[in-house]
């Protein structure tokens, strides 16, 4: 049962084959059995999840109209507030904090009857590509426990691959939904910026952050996408327009006549050979499904990584100023006669981890007088050039594609002392965030040399999110008929308890 898709679980709930309480309990049991090995969760809300499930069951029994995913469990990235449930963002500075309000994403999940199992591990404040920056220890990739599950949303992606939850919420600032999806053989979607409300999403880089769905199938991601998306007056950057018809697109998967643009610059040197093999194979399958494959060029993408590591730290140095030890969270050094400033200094020293401090200092530098134009100002110009590259390319194609990541999952500890090597994981995912458009990663198979998952990335113009689901569904169907079973059926069994 726990290996079913969310859509299959929903069908069984509708048919009365199982109750939400039973389905939720199966997942809580699975978490209890395997999460000591995987460490996908920072907090498991046993009682709250079962209470929510019982409520959904009662509504269904009373004959109320149910939304498509009602009663299906989900894992929530610990960057989203949920009223009364610990929310740490993977940081010691928020240890023990229980937010007094629900984020809009959580409100939407609850309104749809989606059962929230608990909070998943992440790189501290979503800064990282491996979850190694979590103050609570790393998450392990269920494909190989000695490897990283991606980041920052490694807890969410690992929970899906370990069958601890069929659905999860992620957030994507530079690839934090798509890269974890790629290295765990799962599906992750970063919607168009403004498509999903950021209210209650603890801010890292406000002009780049976007919440989105994580799942094991393209249809499940689409169902979750429609459940959480839509205009929110509480987020001034939320788009006031109808949600793209992503479920219909995921059900259709018709790519006949669609033009798929292969980004010349996001392939070749620096990409692992097995990643390229699976990418090329996926292109052939899409061509066989009736799509036209064209090559497009985006000459400024090579500057995206540099621009990102100025813009994101700059915005984070400002956003994280709110952690001042005054209104919530950790407070250190509050002894008689201590000044507010010294309490702030000491609290932030103890409460923030190494990567967070590195980025706050870098952002403070990039925004400081005398350096602003050379760094932050120049990065903003690169952002314009990247958007222009996308606009030019989308004149020649309907979607753009690339490998999601240059490599498969690396070993825990392998890159933790080399920030630049770590940042390179996001080279293919960052341009999407810079332009505010949509991006999806779905499994393209295992790399022959290491038998680890490879991700295929699809990028669509702003508010044309349905195109990613059309292409994703087409590729998923073609790969499924080639493999005979989903990729995750090949994952090694976890020993568990």
């Amino acid at each position, binding site marked *: 049962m726990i290996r079913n898709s969310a859509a299959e679980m929903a069908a069984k709930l509708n048919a009365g084959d199982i109750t939400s309480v039973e389905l939720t309990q199966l997942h809580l049991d699975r978490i209890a059995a395997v999460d000591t090995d995987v460490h996908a969760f920072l907090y498991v809300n046993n009682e709250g999840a079962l209470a929510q499930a019982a409520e959904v069951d009662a509504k269904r029994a009373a004959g109320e109209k149910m939304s498509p995913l009602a009663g299906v469990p989900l894992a929530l990235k610990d960057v989203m507030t949920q009223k009364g449930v610990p929310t740490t963002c993977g940081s010691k500075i928020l240890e023990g*904090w*229980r937010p*007094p*309000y629900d984020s809009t994403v959580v409100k939407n999940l609850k309104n749809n009857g989606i059962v929230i199992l608990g909070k998943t591990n992440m790189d501290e404040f979503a800064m990282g590509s491996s979850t190694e920056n979590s103050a609570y220890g790393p998450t392990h990739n269920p494909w190989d426990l000695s490897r990283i599950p991606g980041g920052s949303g490694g807890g969410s992606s690992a929970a899906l691959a370990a069958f601890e939850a069929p659905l999860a919420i992620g957030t994507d600032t530079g690839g934090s939904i798509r890269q974890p999806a790629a290295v765990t053989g799962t599906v992750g979607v970063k919607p168009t*910026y*403004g498509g999903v409300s950021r209210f209650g999403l603890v801010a890292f880089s406000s*002009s780049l952050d976007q919440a989105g769905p994580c799942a094991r199938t393209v249809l499940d991601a689409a169902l979750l996408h429609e459940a959480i998306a839509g205009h929110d007056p509480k987020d*001034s*950057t939320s788009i006031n327009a109808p949600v793209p018809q992503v479920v219909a697109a995921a059900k259709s998967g018709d790519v006949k006549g669609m033009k798929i643009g292969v980004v010349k610059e996001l392939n070749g040197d620096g990409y692992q050979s097995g990643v390229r093999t699976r990418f090329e194979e996926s292109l052939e399958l899409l061509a066989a499904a009736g799509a036209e494959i064209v090559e497009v060029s985006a000459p*400024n993408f090579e*500057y995206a990584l*540099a*621009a990102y*590591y*100025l813009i994101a730290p700059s915005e984070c140095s400002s956003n994280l*100023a709110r952690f*001042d030890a*005054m*209104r*919530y*969270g*950790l*407070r250190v050094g*509050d002894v008689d006669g*201590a*000044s*507010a400033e*010294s*309490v*702030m*200094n*000491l609290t*932030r*020293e103890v409460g*923030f981890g190494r990567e967070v*401090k*590195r980025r*706050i*200092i*870098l952002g*403070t*530098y990039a925004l*400081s007088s005398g350096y602003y134009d*050379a*760094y932050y*100002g120049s*990065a*903003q*110009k*690169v*952002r*314009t*050039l990247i*958007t222009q590259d996308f606009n030019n390319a989308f004149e020649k194609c309907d979607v753009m594609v690339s490998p999601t990541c240059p490599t498969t999952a690396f070993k825990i500890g392998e890159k933790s002392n080399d*920030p*630049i090597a770590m*940042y390179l994981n996001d080279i293919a995912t960052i341009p999407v965030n810079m*332009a*505010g*458009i949509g991006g999806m990663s779905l499994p393209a198979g295992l790399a022959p040399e290491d038998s680890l998952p490879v991700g295929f990335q699809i990028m669509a113009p702003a508010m044309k999110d349905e195109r990613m689901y059309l292409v994703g569904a087409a590729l998923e169907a073609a790969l499924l008929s080639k493999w005979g079973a989903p990729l995750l059926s090949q994952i090694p069994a976890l020993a568990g308890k």
Partner: protein
Amino acid sequence: MTSLSRDDVANLARLARIEMSDEELVNLSNEFTVILDAVARVQEVAGADVQPTSHPLPLRNVFRPDVVVDSLTPEEALSGAPAQEESRFRVPQILGEE
């Protein structure tokens, strides 16, 4: 090649309100030489003719109607406070003695 000295980093840490040990300052100063070299690449293409983009959406002055809506109660707002007194956040001394 841009570099930041230990003292430069100490000044930035002071501005960012983060206490740092000498070891942390030296480590960051070393790392920044590499990181700044990498990010300085943006200057290669950022010509005077290119307009900056600060945000992906061209939005200006988004308002909602000025009506009273539910908000947190004082108890909820104070629920995460490290210290409180008489329904207020209790904070360390902000102003000097004089």
